[in-house]
């Protein structure tokens, strides 16, 4: 016990003698292990929160949707569902009426005119009981104050709308809303065009089914059914039975039956967890690696400082393993302090990520609980890495002969031939200005460790900010393509399919302020086969239109055969070039609706838009779909100088118009999406910045200690403090340049890997350009070179108060 006490007291003195560096390294370890624990736990609590939120709001298990503009009498769907082969599979069913509309939520300051949707639900008895409404402000659908709706909270929050108010829908009907909220299908907002986080451009109004029928002119009609299943019921089997029953009951209606697992948003939310976690794990490991390098660096230097004492121990016959106890104990103690602090850092990182996630997807249940096992893993990793980082220098120290360990001064230093060669390279300037280069070249191991620590932080930073740059560059590319030569174009989506020469289309073209107009038929489709197939949004249009047409980078549209223009990403995923034939599932008109047909289509060309889901077919081939002359979108080019707001409003007031949206609004929505993602990345960026600064400070502080005798000698020979400091700054500058060069290079490699290998699985819809802006490189440079170079300024006080005489007389 006495000996243990001695070890502990001794190591405590070792630590307190270098407490600033010990605190810094403990913080570095805390940051490494804490960020690791906080980030690697996010998947666990996100999944738990999603599960709990979906369960709390009784999300449906199966949904039946009628095709667009298909409605049946209320009660029909419910009755048909009751006729399934095994009714005991179904726990509850509710009919709904879901109708697209335009929502005008304009305020005195801003015109807010967006496409949207009225979702009529069974509000009786506090309902809906399936896909329940989560009210975040105001009240739900159970009030008696005349208000008929609850407005989607995402949309309201985006535009900072009050919890109660009035909006107008298509036809100018005013709808009072009494609260803000959402149902599980709207945990995240997707527009009809498929873009996510679309709350800026898409508004949902939840009403009772009766109010929805009245507001939309579909009295007594429904078009949607949601079903919850009995416990242990097989969802696939239930869906199959429902499809059979409903098809039998409604032979003329096109409908789709999907389980919740097939829901695009539901799936994406969960898939997103895995993708984000993979990304977080990479960043966490990188930060941990930076911390490990820094730990290795410091503990190595502490051991080096004990070299002479180890030598004395050797000469007294103390076994090597006992000599190793003290420095190892120092490493363990630093690691322990670090990982204990790391728990706090991990909790903070978890809270911040949780807050960002909640901002991103405001679920009814959001909690980032302390997960002991995940944190234990982070702690263990932090401990192991730090102890391993200590073992090597200790092993090196106790392996030397006692005479070498005891020897004082530079005689103890060994240099490789390469180092000696580098050290002898002729350099310009006085010997004072040669010192930094000689110092850096003379200690390659120390230089490399410090540079690698900085490099790990810089690499993470370049990768993180580079991802943001790359996303933004991708958005820019998409925006350039979508805007084309008519950036002020407005897309008018009609509420149904119309003939190209219909009066609705003519009326839109004739509005004052419209310079030109062209039409498009927008329908869904699916490219590819099996698990690799993906949805596309097919625009059937004049591919030579003067209003807008996609750029065709590769291939030529042939007039004699139906062929589509797809994105580069789609071509890559399909493994097809222009001219090749690919599997294509497309809609074919059937009565008043359409059915999907599995067939093939030739790829006419490749367009440069980064979004995979965008595909185009020349209108001369619309016969392939049985939809010749049918359109549902009108693209309008305003006259030069026309008031866009007034034109949007005039278009909105036209009969048959479902939505009016300037084309740049879509790009803005994607920018908003990127903005949300940047919030996540900012958590990483903050941690990395702090880590790099701590490494820089620690490195300078250690160097200042190690160079104390050199500095004292310079003072004794009359060099002023500023010159001594300048030498330190120059040395740090060189290490900073080296670390930054390695870091930027590694960061670019990492970024390329993240984008070309990791992200395609996480974000299959996008071709992301690898792009790093000058600003990002400047940030890396400022941090890695400027901050590291200036870190020695923190030692100014130490230099000014140096006891020169004592420092000069110290025997190592």
């Amino acid at each position, binding site marked *: 016990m006495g000996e243990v006490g001695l070890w502990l007291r001794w190591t405590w003195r070792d630590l307190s003698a270098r407490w600033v560096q010990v605190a810094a390294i403990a913080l570095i370890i805390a940051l490494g292990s804490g960020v690791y624990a906080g980030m690697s736990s996010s998947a666990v609590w996100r999944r738990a929160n999603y599960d709990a939120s979906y369960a709390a709001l009784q999300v449906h298990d199966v949904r039946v949707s009628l095709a667009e503009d298909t409605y049946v009498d209320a009660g029909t769907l419910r009755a048909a569902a009751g006729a399934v082969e095994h009714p005991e599979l179904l726990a509850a069913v509710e009919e709904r009426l879901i109708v697209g509309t335009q929502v005008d939520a304009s305020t005195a300051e801003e015109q807010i005119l967006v496409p949207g949707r009225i979702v009529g639900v069974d509000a009786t008895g506090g309902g809906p009981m399936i896909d329940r409404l989560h009210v975040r402000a105001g009240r739900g659908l159970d009030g008696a104050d005349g208000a008929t709706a609850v407005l989607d909270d995402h949309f309201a929050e985006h535009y900072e709308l009050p919890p109660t108010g009035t909006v107008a829908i298509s036809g100018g009907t005013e709808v009072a809303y009494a609260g803000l909220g959402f149902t599980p299908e709207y945990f995240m907002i997707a527009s009809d065009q498929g873009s996510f986080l679309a709350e800026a451009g898409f508004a949902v109004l939840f009403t009772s089914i009766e109010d929805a029928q009245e507001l939309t002119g579909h009295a007594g009609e429904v078009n949607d059914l949601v079903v919850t299943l009995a416990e242990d019921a097989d969802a696939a089997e239930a869906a199959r039975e429902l499809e059979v029953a409903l098809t039998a009951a409604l032979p003329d209606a096109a409908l789709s039956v999907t389980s919740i697992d097939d829901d695009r948003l539901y799936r994406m939310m969960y898939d997103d967890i895995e993708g984000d976690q993979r990304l977080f794990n990479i960043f966490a490991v990188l930060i941990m690696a930076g911390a490990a390098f820094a730990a290795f660096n410091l503990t190595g230097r502490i051991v080096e400082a004990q070299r002479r004492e180890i030598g004395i121990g050797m000469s007294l016959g103390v076994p090597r393993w006992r000599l190793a106890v003290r420095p190892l104990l120092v490493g363990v103690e630093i690691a322990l302090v670090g990982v204990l602090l790391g728990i706090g850092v991990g909790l903070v990182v978890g809270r911040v990520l949780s807050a960002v996630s909640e901002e991103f997807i405001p679920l009814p249940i959001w909690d980032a609980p302390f997960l002991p096992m995940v944190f234990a893993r982070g702690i263990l990793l932090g401990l192991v890495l730090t102890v391993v980082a200590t073992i090597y220098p200790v092993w090196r120290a106790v392996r030397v002969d006692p005479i070498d360990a005891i020897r004082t001064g530079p*005689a*103890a230093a060994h240099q490789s031939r390469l180092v000696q060669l580098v*050290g002898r390279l002729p350099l310009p300037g006085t*010997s004072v200005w040669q010192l930094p280069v000689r110092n850096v070249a*003379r200690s390659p191991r120390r230089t490399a460790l410090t540079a690698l620590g900085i490099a790990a932080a810089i690499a993470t930073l370049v990768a993180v900010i580079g991802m943001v740059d790359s996303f933004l560059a991708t958005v820019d590319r998409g925006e350039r393509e979508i805007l084309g030569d008519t950036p002020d174009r407005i897309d008018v989506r009609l509420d149904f399919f119309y003939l190209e020469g219909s009066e609705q289309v003519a009326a839109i073209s004739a509005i004052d302020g419209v310079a030109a107009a062209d039409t498009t038929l927008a329908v869904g489709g699916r490219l590819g086969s099996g698990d690799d197939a993906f949805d596309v949004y097919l625009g059937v249009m004049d591919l030579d239109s003067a209003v807008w047409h996609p750029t065709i980078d590769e291939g030529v549209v042939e007039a004699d055969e139906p062929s589509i223009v797809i994105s580069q990403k789609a071509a890559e995923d399909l493994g097809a070039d222009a001219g090749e034939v690919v599997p294509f599932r497309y809609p074919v008109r059937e009565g008043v609706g359409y059915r999907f047909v599995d067939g093939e289509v030739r790829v006419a060309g490749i367009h440069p838009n980064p979004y995979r889901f965008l595909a185009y077919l020349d209108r001369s081939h619309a016969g392939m779909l049985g939809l010749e002359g049918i359109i549902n979108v009108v693209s309008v080019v305003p006259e030069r100088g026309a008031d866009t707001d007034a034109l949007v409003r005039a278009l909105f007031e036209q009969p048959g118009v479902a939505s009016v949206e300037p084309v740049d609004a879509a790009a803005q929505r994607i920018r908003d999406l990127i903005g949300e993602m940047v919030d996540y990345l900012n958590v990483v960026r903050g941690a990395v910045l702090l880590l790099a600064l701590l490494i820089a400070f620690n490195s300078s502080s250690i160097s200042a200690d190690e160079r104390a005798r050199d500095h004292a*000698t*310079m003072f004794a020979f*009359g060099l002023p403090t500023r010159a001594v400091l300048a030498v330190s700054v120059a040395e740090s500058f060189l290490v900073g340049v080296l670390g930054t060069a390695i870091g930027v290079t590694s960061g670019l490699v990492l970024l390329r890997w993240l984008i070309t290998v990791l992200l395609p699985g996480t974000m299959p819809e996008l071709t992301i350009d690898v792009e790093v802006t000058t600003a990002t490189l400047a940030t890396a440079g400022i941090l890695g070179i400027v901050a590291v170079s200036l870190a020695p300024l923190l030692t100014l006080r130490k230099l000014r108060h140096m006891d020169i*005489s004592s420092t000069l*007389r110290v025997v190592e």
Partner: protein
Amino acid sequence: MALIELTGVARRYDTAAGIVTALEGIDLRVDAGELVVVLGPSGCGKTTLLNLIGALDTPSEGTATVGGRELTASTRQDLFAYRRSTVSFVFQTFNLFPSLTALENVRFGADVAGRHDAPAIAREVLERVGLGQRLHHFPHQLSGGEQQRVAIARALATGNPILLADEPTGELDFHTGVQILALLQAQAIAGRAVVVVTHNREIARAADRVVELSGGQLLSDGPPEGGRVEASSLRW
């Protein structure tokens, strides 16, 4: 005219245990061309005296005029300039820059003193101390005696008129120590004021004057007993 002139110099330190007097009432004068050995046991104030002359420390009382400059009235910047132009140090533990070669270490002395053609001066001085064949060796490749000769060469390369040596033979064997003392004697003969601090009484025999300290006070100041001898005849 005296190069070094201390009058009534005292140095006291305010410590947790109270005021500690390192030096008290010191009057000392050293002329150019003199080799003065400051002798005394550990803790008697020898190094403090050297530090005051070298302006690494300032007196609590009295005046110190070195090279015509009143140190007690000088600013911090003046003292830096003074160290560059007036004094140069040789340390017991050499304090060479480990990352510089012997030539570069010596050149450092010439560089900081602002001497033109520093590389040529460094080469010439190293030749003079017998290290012409070791110019490009790093300190760790040199023996203790060679390192101390490099340290002396560095001090000489400054061209400053006062050389301050703190236990310059403390780390060296007898034979090497004698070589170093011979070098220092030669510097005094060449016209420099050389102050050597040591606890080794034998070394004092090579001095022009011996100043003995005890308990921070000057016990004696005069030529060595039996007169000055050549360094080569010393034995310890």
